[in-house]
């Protein structure tokens, strides 16, 4: 049985037609399953955990990056395939899986092309694409061997799946994370961006002014943060246009 998790924001009136269209399309494709709508009295996590007792064939996230992130963190390490039907904005992760919109997503679910990829883990929380934090007052420890300290303002980005496709070294199946440190130097006119790049699967990040990490462009995680990979943790249904 398939379980379809409709995120809370889809209860808004403007998404009514899209939700009805998705339900109809899934029925037409013979992909019937249980439709679960997240509401004010039932969280996404509790719905997923209840449905796991029925051994579903697939859990499908209907929503955005945040919906997917919550679902993979609710699966309790079970190897259940996950599908995505993107709705609304903030859907870069589904696009990197080759899924552009809800129509295409239903066809991709029907074709059921599956890939196994790594997940990033930050303080026990999984992420699919990346974790980001500011440089200011941040110290990074790599493999318990050396520390890196940026000397100017900028951004630290730790990538598992490169949804922006700026880095050809990124591979969500190599068991490694890519650490990018960008530091801006100079004035407005002579602004220069210096970049550092390191691959590792054991990173500790401490921010002395207690800024938080943002994972998958959707969720905040407190520092200090221990970051690594969970190799082959996610079975995901993908389209042919995926980036990996």
């Amino acid at each position, binding site marked *: 049985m398939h379980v379809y998790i409709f995120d809370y924001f889809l209860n808004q009136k403007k998404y009514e037609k899209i939700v009805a269209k998705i339900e109809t399309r899934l029925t037409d494709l013979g992909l019937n399953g249980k439709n679960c709508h997240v509401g004010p009295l039932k969280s996404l996590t509790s719905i997923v955990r209840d449905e796991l007792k029925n051994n579903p064939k697939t859990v499908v996230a209907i929503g955005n990056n945040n919906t997917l992130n919550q679902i993979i963190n609710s699966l309790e390490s079970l190897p259940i395939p996950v599908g995505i039907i993107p709705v609304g904005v903030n859907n870069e992760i589904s696009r990197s899986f080759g899924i552009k919109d809800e129509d295409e997503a239903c066809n991709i679910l029907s074709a059921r092309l599956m890939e196994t990829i790594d997940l990033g883990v930050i303080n026990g929380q999984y992420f699919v694409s990346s974790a980001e934090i500011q440089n200011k007052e941040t110290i990074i420890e790599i*493999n318990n*061997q*050396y*520390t*890196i*300290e*940026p*000397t*100017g303002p*900028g951004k630290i980005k730790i990538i598992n799946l490169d949804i922006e496709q700026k880095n050809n*070294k990124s591979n969500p199946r190599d068991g490694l994370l890519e650490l990018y*440190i960008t*530091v801006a*130097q100079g004035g407005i006119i002579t602004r220069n961006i*210096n*970049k*550092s*790049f*390191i*691959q590792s699967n054991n990173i500790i990040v401490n921010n002395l002014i207690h800024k938080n990490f943002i994972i998958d462009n959707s969720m905040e995680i407190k520092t200090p943060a221990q970051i690594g990979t969970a190799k082959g943790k996610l079975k995901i249904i993908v389209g042919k246009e995926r980036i990996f």
Partner: protein
Amino acid sequence: MFKTDKNSDFKEAETIIGPSVKVEGDFVGQGNLIIEGVVRGSVKTDGNLRVGDKSKIEASVAAENAIISGEIKGDVNIKGDLELTVGAKILGDIETGTICIARGAFFSGKCTMNEGIKIKDDKKDNGRTINGAEEEIEA
């Protein structure tokens, strides 16, 4: 030996330490490494190493091949080719297979050549081959 074919290896750099970061500790890499920033401790890679002209390294350095344009305070151990370009400054001992020092580079320390050096003279019959010899240059 130190021409563009070596430089092309750095296009595939596995690790880049940019000019605006400080690294402290034992840096161990497995591929090509580019250092443009400040490093204290030790640097070891089984790939090629390039040290940029603005970088400052206070560490012992070990790599397969290296092109040095910045400053290193510490011993340098290179299995293959070592090139010191204009502006390079090394305060420490060097152990390398082959070495190329450009005019304007600064080196203070002991240099040990590890690999055999072949000297051939085709014109005369006094051609000689020295294999496994160690040649030391006191700078």
